[in-house]
């Protein structure tokens, strides 16, 4: 009668057992905000949902060996309210804050956002900008890989069948780094991203750019740091002219990676403006 069952796991090992029972199509369930939409159109999407959202170790946000580790079932609200994340990754705080509204942020999880890997997922550009990695448990053992490699293309990841994303982690940026995230939607809340940009930057003592990372979202099929843009910035002194050059290079990367689409005519100038703006936020101009 029921098209699937839902079982709450209380530990990671129990979850792994439940996820790997032979003969059943099982899926991990965290915030449910994506899965409920799938089930609405296909109630037979799976046989079993394993609710991992209340497993304490999957909700932890902590610092270990210079990395911030965020349990996969931590909600967007928990991430954005974490003092540790606020201190080390404003870009991720802003990205989580831009997701949906309170209701979605109370249920939706960072891990779910990564595993679902929607083209417009707000957390992905921020995580990739932070050089974040995934920690995955499979029946064969644990493994880790960068988020940028884990997410292969929209709605596709390298999560093995029967595997569970345990956590996301990022190295704490060097002191003096700034990061930011900008989102453009068609309204001011509950908006799907038209474009997002995440950036991280640091200046050296003589005011030149020592570190630069730039990632765009909803712009390219795969999300990655734009090395060509970052190289252009490194070693230079921040200036509006430089930001505009970098913004144009960002647009060129978008076109190289995704080709021209119906929306390109709009996204070219809009992404250029957003990129110049975010660079201005992470690289403060020396007082003129």
């Amino acid at each position: 009668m029921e098209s699937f069952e839902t079982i709450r796991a209380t530990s990671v090992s129990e979850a792994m057992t439940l996820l790997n029972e032979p003969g059943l199509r099982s899926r991990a369930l965290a915030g449910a905000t994506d899965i409920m939409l799938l089930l609405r159109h296909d109630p037979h999407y799976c046989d079993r949902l394993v609710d991992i959202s209340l497993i304490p170790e999957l909700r932890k946000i902590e610092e270990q060996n210079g990395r911030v580790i965020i349990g996969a079932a931590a909600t967007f609200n928990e991430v954005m309210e974490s003092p540790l994340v606020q201190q080390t990754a404003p870009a991720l705080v802003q990205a989580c804050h831009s997701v949906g509204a309170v209701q979605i942020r109370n249920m939706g999880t960072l891990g779910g956002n990564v595993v679902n890997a929607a083209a417009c997922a707000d957390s992905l550009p921020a995580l990739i900008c932070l050089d974040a990695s995934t920690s995955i448990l499979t029946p064969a053992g644990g493994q880790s890989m960068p988020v940028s490699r884990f997410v292969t293309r929209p709605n596709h990841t390298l999560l093995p069948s029967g595997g569970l994303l345990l956590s996301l982690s990022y190295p704490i940026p060097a002191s003096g780094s700034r990061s930011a995230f900008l989102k453009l939607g068609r309204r001011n809340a509950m908006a799907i991203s038209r474009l997002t940009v995440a950036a991280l930057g640091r200046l050296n003592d003589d005011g030149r750019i020592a570190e630069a990372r730039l990632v765009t979202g909803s712009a390219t099929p795969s999300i990655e740091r734009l090395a060509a843009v970052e190289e252009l910035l490194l070693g230079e002194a921040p200036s509006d002219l430089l930001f505009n050059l970098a913004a144009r290079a960002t647009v060129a990367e978008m076109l190289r990676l995704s080709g021209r689409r119906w929306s390109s005519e709009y996204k070219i100038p809009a992404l250029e403006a957003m990129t110049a703006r975010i660079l201005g936020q992470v690289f403060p101009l020396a007082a003129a």
Partner: protein
Amino acid sequence: MPEYRFIGKPADRVDALEKVLGSAMYIADYFVPGMLLARTIRSTLPHARIKRIDLSAALKIPGVVAAITSEDFVNHGRFGYPVEDMFMLAYERARYVGDGIVSIAAETESALQQAVDAAVIELEELPAVFDMTHALDPSSALIGEQPADAEGYPRGNLLNQYAVRKGDPAHELSTCAVTLEAEYSTMHQEHAYLEPEGALAIPESDGSLTVYASCQSPFLNRANLVKVLGLPEGRVRVIQPVVGGAFGGKDDLMYQISAQVARLAQLTGRPVKMILPREESMIASYKRDAMQMHIQLGADASGRLRASRIHALVDSGAYSSITPFTAWRSSIHAMGPYRYDACHVDTDVVYTNNGYSGAFRGFGNAEVCFAIESAMDELALKLGIDPIDLRLQNCLLPCDITAHGQKLGDDVGLAECLDEVRRLSGWQHKHPLYTSEASKAPIPGELRRGIGVAALFHGISLGAEGADFAAGTLEVNPDYSLTLTSGLTDYGTGSRTTFTLIAAETLGLDPNRFVMPRPDTNSAQDSGPTVASRATVLGGNATRVTAEQLSQLLNQAAADLFACRPAEIIRHGELFIGPGEEPASFEKVVDHARKIGLALSSRGRWSAPEISWSMQKGQGKPYFAYHYGAQVAEVLVDTGTGKVDVTGFWAVHNTGKVIFPQGAYGQLFGGIAQGLGYALMERVDFDQGYLQATNFDEYLIPTSMDIPDIQGEFVEKPFSAGPYGAKNLGETGLVPAAPAIVNAIANATGRRIRSLPANLERVLLGRDLRKEGSSTACKLGLK
């Protein structure tokens, strides 16, 4: 102005308590024993011949109880007003994606889904029309019916034509110092009431039917049910539960749903309920019509308007619904609230296969107001005159004669609205500042401020659209409470509170004594449809008349008690005072009335003042009066991305006396919010007849973060024909909001947007971009 006890004073909505407690019963909240669930299978083609329907397999599924088609209704369920071109279920042809074809009743949702999958409906696709500009081409497929009906329409895909005629604008325009010619367009708009449609039919033991329906007009619903079910009027009772918003959108589709569950209930002898999921609601329901408007304006160098020539095309979609009325209203309002030496308006209404259009708050005026108020700003720029000054120089004043040849009364307060909104918004300072900022060379990606104005007039009630009357009843109950009914309903607008306050004021009794039961065709009096900003003036006057009659009865009883003449009775609070005696309480007077056998109940009816319109001459008195208003929007435009934030909003409306202030502000703010959505984000895209946005994830309406705090004010110039001097205001907040915002964007950027919505692409690039359309969302939504 006289001092009132209840009118214009703080009051609570009569239905707010049950709503905040969560106990208010909406249609989906009704669960009755033995109830079946129903669903309608809808066309997935925009235009098709229904070749074959085979429901035998569906009916064999366990739990499936009954299924109906158009064959199950009298005359195939034909209905519609003013043009009878719809069916309770599609007959012979389906004319839009979402047109209902078969309705099924079953015990459970899963049986229903299996039945939907098993039903065989063979459709043969027919050529369709999606571009309204080509609907009248001789080669276009025929959507409407032939031949013309008795009224003279429709004729092929031309549903109707309307005209306004004053003088010779072509000649005037040729001699004007400054002229403007431009083309504007608006899109369809989805009502997006938070409660989707639903109905529940209960067969009674005496063979009659009770239908609970989330509709606007229970009497029209009953009239249609009587017609298509073949039952006498006394055998069909329609009750309106609490309705979760309508904005004009809960008429035709609701009549179909009501008839479908009613017929299924008749056939099965069991209660049948149907609630539409959001996708089905958006796909099947009618929208605000889309319009294209070509405007020519001419003025002399000083800014005196001389002529306007307007040609408009209205997309009615697959059925007429009430579009002939909305289109007529748009033709009457197309020139805006201004004086002209000459004015011609020509409006063509056409059929297409883009869903269908019907009533929506603003009712034709939102569309043309966007066009004429944009054009006024463009003309102001050409003339080098401040946009508010240009409007003040030309706006209708008391006792002016309109382009329709109508002499106005002394209630006209548009100039006051414009003056006041200029003061409130800080226009004098901001407009020159933002205009000079916009004239500077842009810094890439900078944020720019802009401010814009729009004015409106809006004809009160139906106008020459139909019979205009309302009726009410009042009765004193054994416990000294009073039951008040009105045939005009409250689907969230607050009209029940307005009527209660009017009755309380008229009778001198506390508003808490009054009870207004749910609208019920068995107890209320037919008052025509609850549409077109009718409630306050029509229903309010009917309530006043009804209360006056009861007041006379009470005075008669008091006079008998005091042995004096009724004219000698004086009222103080709830007390009745006669000459030289102790005052009598209301209760005492009621007791005495009962003792002398005087029945304390009354029925009152109020008919609107005479109006007239000559379709041939394009002249007349289209409405008995107008509401006027002016709004100012302030925006912040991100010139890098095209993102627009509305940062300030001021609205001043000439409403006559405000009866229920809390409700009046609520109508104003809510209307402006819908207008803001219309201006910036709401888009009903039909691609080859397929709706692209079928739920709130894609169809975006403003959130609380998209609307600034609004400052509203009312110019309470009394309106002599209104109850206690009131005019209507339900639709008017929405109407000028979009042009005010788009004028503000133009002020900020120096770029004029002539099509709605002013979305990211239009603001940044000056033109829209459209993703390739698809039929997926519709097909998934109707599965």
